[in-house]
């Protein structure tokens, strides 16, 4: 069975040219991994380790300088944007800022449909209503603006926007960081339910190791643009190999177990 997403030796170099010569600022060393359908992969690492950059490369915001990304065995080219945008969708960290305040949720969700599909207006509307109910909201919510919603509902809309093109992979950049605990568990449950029902592949970036351990199947640890370690969640949490991962895990363990 071909994996859903295969990443081969993906590299990225950011260079600035001051006056003379080339100075390399940041590079993402060759990254390779595979993602099967219905699987969740978490990306861990400190700030500035290239987590968000990897997410951007996957969704096609940034152009990689080497390597390739295969979706179901066929290469994604940078020119065929529609194919990529339909297959890989992204959820952003701050759901509030990522929604346009001047548009109703309906028109917000309609935009990707207009750009990427050839559905006519009534079927677009039907699709929007279907997606809204899928994420646990009412069809009437399409007439609402973002300021009328609570935080949890906004996050749901962000999920709905990612889902509306029936993607195969969702890339989420810190989707739970800005949420309150009770709303956070709701969103976690929603994402896990959608994954079970639709067989989505998830790639998500998070600082919260508790949630990483709970929902992910595999983990990729990045430091300074290099892959330090990757493997099954269980293995990484119990037998971390590299010193960097050990430090991360220890810090986390120190928080939950308290000697008193």
């Amino acid at each position, binding site marked *: 069975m071909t994996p859903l997403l295969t990443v081969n030796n993906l590299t990225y170099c950011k260079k600035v040219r001051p006056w003379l010569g080339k100075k390399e600022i940041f590079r993402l060393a060759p990254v390779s991994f595979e993602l099967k359908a219905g699987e969740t992969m978490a990306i861990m690492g*400190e*700030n500035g380790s290239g987590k968000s950059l990897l997410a951007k490369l996957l969704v096609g915001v940034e152009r990689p300088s080497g390597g390739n990304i295969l979706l179901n065995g066929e290469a994604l080219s940078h020119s065929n944007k529609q194919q990529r945008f339909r297959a890989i969708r992204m959820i952003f960290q701050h759901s509030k800022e990522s929604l346009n305040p001047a548009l109703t949720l309906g028109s917000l969700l309609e935009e990707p449909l207009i750009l990427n599909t050839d559905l006519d207006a009534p079927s677009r509307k039907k699709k929007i209503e279907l997606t809204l109910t899928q994420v646990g909201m009412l069809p009437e919510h399409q007439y609402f603006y973002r300021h009328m919603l*609570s*935080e*949890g*509902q906004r996050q749901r809309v962000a999920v709905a926007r990612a889902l509306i093109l029936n993607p195969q992979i969702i890339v989420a950049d810190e989707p739970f*960081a800005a949420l*309150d*605990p*009770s*709303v*956070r*568990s*709701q969103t*976690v*449950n929603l994402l*896990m*339910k959608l994954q079970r029902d639709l067989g989505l592949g998830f790639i998500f970036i998070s*600082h919260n*190791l*508790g*949630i990483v*351990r*709970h*929902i992910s199947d595999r983990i990729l640890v990045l430091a300074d643009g290099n892959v330090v370690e990757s493997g099954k*969640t269980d293995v990484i949490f119990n037998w971390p190999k590299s010193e960097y991962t050990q*430090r*991360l895990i220890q*810090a*986390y363990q*120190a*928080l*939950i177990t*308290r000697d*008193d």
Partner: protein
Amino acid sequence: MPLLDIKNLTLEIDTALGWVKALDKINLSIDSKEVRALVGESGSGKSLIVKSIVGALPDRWRVTADRMNWKGRDLLSMSDTQRRNITRNEMSVVLQNPTTTLDPSATLGEQIGESIPDSMLDKGWFWQRRAQRHTIAMQQLHKVGIRNHELCLSSYPHQLPDDVCQKFAIAMALVSDPKLLIADNPTMGMETTTKIQVLRLLAKLNKTRGLSILFVSHDLLAISAMADTMTVLYCGQTVESGRMSQIKRRPLHPYTQALLDSAPSFRRDLPPKAALSCLEGTIPTLQHLPIGCRLGPRCPRAQKDCVKMPAVRRIHDHHYACHFPLHRDKP
């Protein structure tokens, strides 16, 4: 005698729909050398409590309390000057989000110099005092674990990373040698390793200087690593308070249970990818507060009595406000 003792603190806010009780009968007490956590989600009034303790609320809001004592002296009835003296010398606040609370137009050196009280300096010429200020600032920065003090003191807040700014804000709060440190969400948005550093720092200060800390946050992991006692807040009502270990082992209020359940790290028996238990719905806004117990509409155990405000009951030093507490079914 507790350091800070608050009983039935009520804060009313003037809105278009009339007076709304943003805080409703809050009880809170902090002993000296105690680390107390104040837990609640956003909009539960955590920051309002902090502001009403230091008196940073607008005058037109009504603050009433049966008791609001600082070392036995009533904070509400004293004059503004006296109160300012107390908040200046004996309490310190680390506000949420250092990048926005620090002055963007002044260097960090100028800002920390301003917060050093004159009583800590010898009499001398202004250049001598300036040198003293600089040494004190330097020592403080070393204490909180900022090594590169020259760079830090000469830069503006936007030039430094968030975690350094947060440590700097803690240094600034500690410079006047307070008895109580109120830390409003000091670990928000930090990654685990930095978070640990800040928590260790606070724990060390608590041990060595006997500093009391009111740790305001919704990060249960950080709280459970730090605090001795915990007060849980929901929508401006105190829901449960008591010793951390006791609450963690056997919460009595359904909301506390839900909060604890929402952190998968605490539950080792939970199979991976199992659904987390959570409360339905979201926190009501101030304009649409339910009557009685404010958790009512979201509570899985709610019954008819819940439209009346439950009285605070206690078992030893474990206080809770619920008609139908968990683990304690009616005989």
